[in-house]
């Protein structure tokens, strides 16, 4: 809602037509899903596991600096692959159609402190349904930041550049706290809620296992390399966290992305839902390797339109989606990674201060009617 509604020129009929065209793109992919796609995800999973094995093997000798560097780099990449292209996408149900119980949203778990089922609820059910709706989508600033002028300013937001940096370093814990809705649930009365306690326990168990693996078992296995392996796994976790935090910030925070009022989604049609996803997400442009390392979340717009299509198909879908943006004269927000990261951080800094009192004409507050 940063400016004039960029979708105001569309009639209700056009919006529904847009929805039908997007449905057609989705149907095409579903009809052609098959052996090649299945081979793709199996290859990625197999490569990730081998990379992790080799990297952890090398780290057994991490006392030698070259081994430390190679092992840490490999483990960082393996952890990023696990979380992004593999975990995030499998937990979305993108590969459920294969009916392979080993690669299924209901059975998968990832190298992350948030248990898969809690993450699926807060991410798949809340964030993807209520994308960028203020008060509904907690991804908008994760409940600790102000990322749109329409979110109310509090003095605590002065520190948000710092909160954001800390969150970036320990992002997986941030996600776990966020999936627990810790902010809301830490109130005295809610803390005793048995459902919350059960979920908190599950998070505790997951954290214990992850910490034990990364910071006790593997260092112990390394013998004389105990401390250097500990440092290596810690570094790999930080790198994974910084990377995934950057990618995810680029999805909804850069300038040009729209947010929506709670009442604007009442009675929302399929077409209007699609339109909100289109206006509420931003892409990252770049090489194939970059797309892969972001888990194809660089195709955030396409992912938000079709969260359950296999990630390896987003690149081809993007060409068709972009053509629709042009046809309907909508702004496709995209840019190279450094530019988008800068844009998102810039917003975090800018909105740590209250809104400027004087409204310039192009900063007029108008609701997006989508």
């Amino acid at each position, binding site marked *: 809602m940063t400016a004039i509604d960029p979708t105001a020129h569309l009639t209700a009929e056009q919006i529904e037509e847009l929805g039908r065209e997007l449905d057609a793109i989705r149907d095409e992919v579903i009809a052609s*899903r*098959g*052996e*090649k*796609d*299945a*081979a793709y995800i199996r290859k990625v999973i*197999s490569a990730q*596991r*081998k990379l992790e*094995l080799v990297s952890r093997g090398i780290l057994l000798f991490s006392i030698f600096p070259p081994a430390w560097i190679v092992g840490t780099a490999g483990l960082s990449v393996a952890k990023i692959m696990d979380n992004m292209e593999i975990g995030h996408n499998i937990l979305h*149900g993108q590969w*459920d*159609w*294969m*009916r*392979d*119980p*080993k690669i*299924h949203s*209901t*059975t998968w*778990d*990832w*190298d992350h402190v948030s248990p898969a089922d809690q993450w699926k609820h807060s991410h798949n059910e809340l964030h993807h349904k209520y994308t960028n709706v203020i008060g509904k989508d907690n991804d908008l600033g994760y409940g600790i930041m102000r990322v749109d002028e329409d979110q109310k300013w509090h003095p605590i937001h002065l520190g948000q550049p710092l909160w954001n940096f800390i969150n970036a370093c320990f992002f997986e814990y941030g996600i776990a706290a966020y999936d627990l809705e810790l902010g809301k649930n830490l109130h005295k009365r809610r803390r005793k809620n048995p459902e919350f306690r059960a979920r908190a326990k599950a998070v505790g168990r*997951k954290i214990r*296992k*992850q910490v*034990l*693996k990364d910071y006790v*078992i*593997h260092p112990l*296995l390394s013998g004389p390399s105990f401390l250097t392996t500990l440092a290596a796994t810690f570094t790999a976790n930080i790198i994974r966290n910084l990377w995934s935090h950057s990618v995810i910030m680029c999805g909804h925070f850069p300038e040009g992305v729209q947010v929506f009022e709670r009442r604007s989604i009442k009675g929302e049609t399929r077409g209007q839902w699609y339109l909100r996803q289109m206006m509420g997400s931003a892409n990252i442009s770049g090489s194939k390797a970059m797309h892969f390392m972001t888990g194809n979340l660089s195709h955030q717009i396409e992912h938000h339109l079709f969260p359950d299509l296999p990630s390896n198909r987003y690149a081809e879908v993007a060409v068709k989606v972009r053509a629709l943006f042009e046809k309907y004269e909508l702004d496709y927000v995209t840019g190279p990674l450094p530019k988008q990261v800068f844009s998102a951080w810039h917003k975090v800094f800018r909105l740590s201060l209250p809104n400027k009192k004087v409204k310039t004409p192009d900063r007029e507050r108008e609701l997006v009617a989508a």
Partner: protein
Amino acid sequence: MTSTALRSRAWQLLEMVTTPLLPSDYLDLFSPLRAGADLRGRIEAVHAETPDAATIVIRPGKGWRGHVAGQYVRIGVDVDGVRLWRAYSVTSPTNRQDGRITITVKAIPDGKVSNHLVRHAKPGTVIQLDQATGEFVLPKTKPAKVLYLTAGSGITPVMGMLRDAQLEDVVMVHSAPRKQDVIFRNDLHDLVADKSLRLVELHTDTDGMLDVARLHELVPDWAERETWACGPTGMLDAAEAHWAANGIAERLHTERFRPTIVVAGDGGEVTFGTTGKTVDADGATPLLDVGEAAGVLMPSGCRMGICFGCSTPLKAGAVRDLRTGEITEAEPGVLVQTCVSAAAGPCELER
């Protein structure tokens, strides 16, 4: 500490090393057929039997417990990237020296798995496997006189029996549309040449369908023989009626390849409790199909109500057996076969 306890300790430690994955997730990368793995098999060869049937040679994983002649095995094959399970009779003898087993598959029109196996299966492919099962087997004490009554791909479990046991007096009446459609024709004629089998081979395109009521013209002593019959529903129904009419129903053993669907009632809303999915289903569609269409991970097997591979707890409501019309209502511990059950009003499955 016993060695088993020690091993389980070591395994627990390994699990701490690999969490959230399991040690087996890594071992599977290198050795999918090892002892302790989920049971799998590797296709090692595919031999054409007829223009539309092929024998698949499978090396089963270390966990394979063997089979009894006449039994079938459930296999899970990825067709167009989708894991599909079907049941096929084992056609190799139980004492095969190289430890491999064979199944023989006839491609049926629109059969996804059968067409894939006959025409596209490649040696080297790893498939999912289940232990052999089935009651269509020879008894421990071998009967003196045996009749095998088969048609089409119904010959496959019987071939497993023929190859396995040397019996004194065996007659086989087998029907297929044409000579070139007879699966195992050469093997059968070898047995005939050995004098270990008397074969009545009917080509129904020219000879017409077998009239079970006139079986005595082909096999005069049919009523004295312990009989195993496998083939299309029509033939089996006729055989069961004929044997019953002669008061010797207990001498007939049958194996069906297709469910006989008799009834469809009202459908209802089906809830898959574990995944939280809810869909409307009509009274004729098997719940297995309903769940699969909704993206629920449904276990499945023969898809015809015999193997119980699809059994799923019914938590609430009622379902109708599509073969008999019988209604099953939810009670603690009640499992239903989703492949032959449809919604009979709103119901909930634990999936």
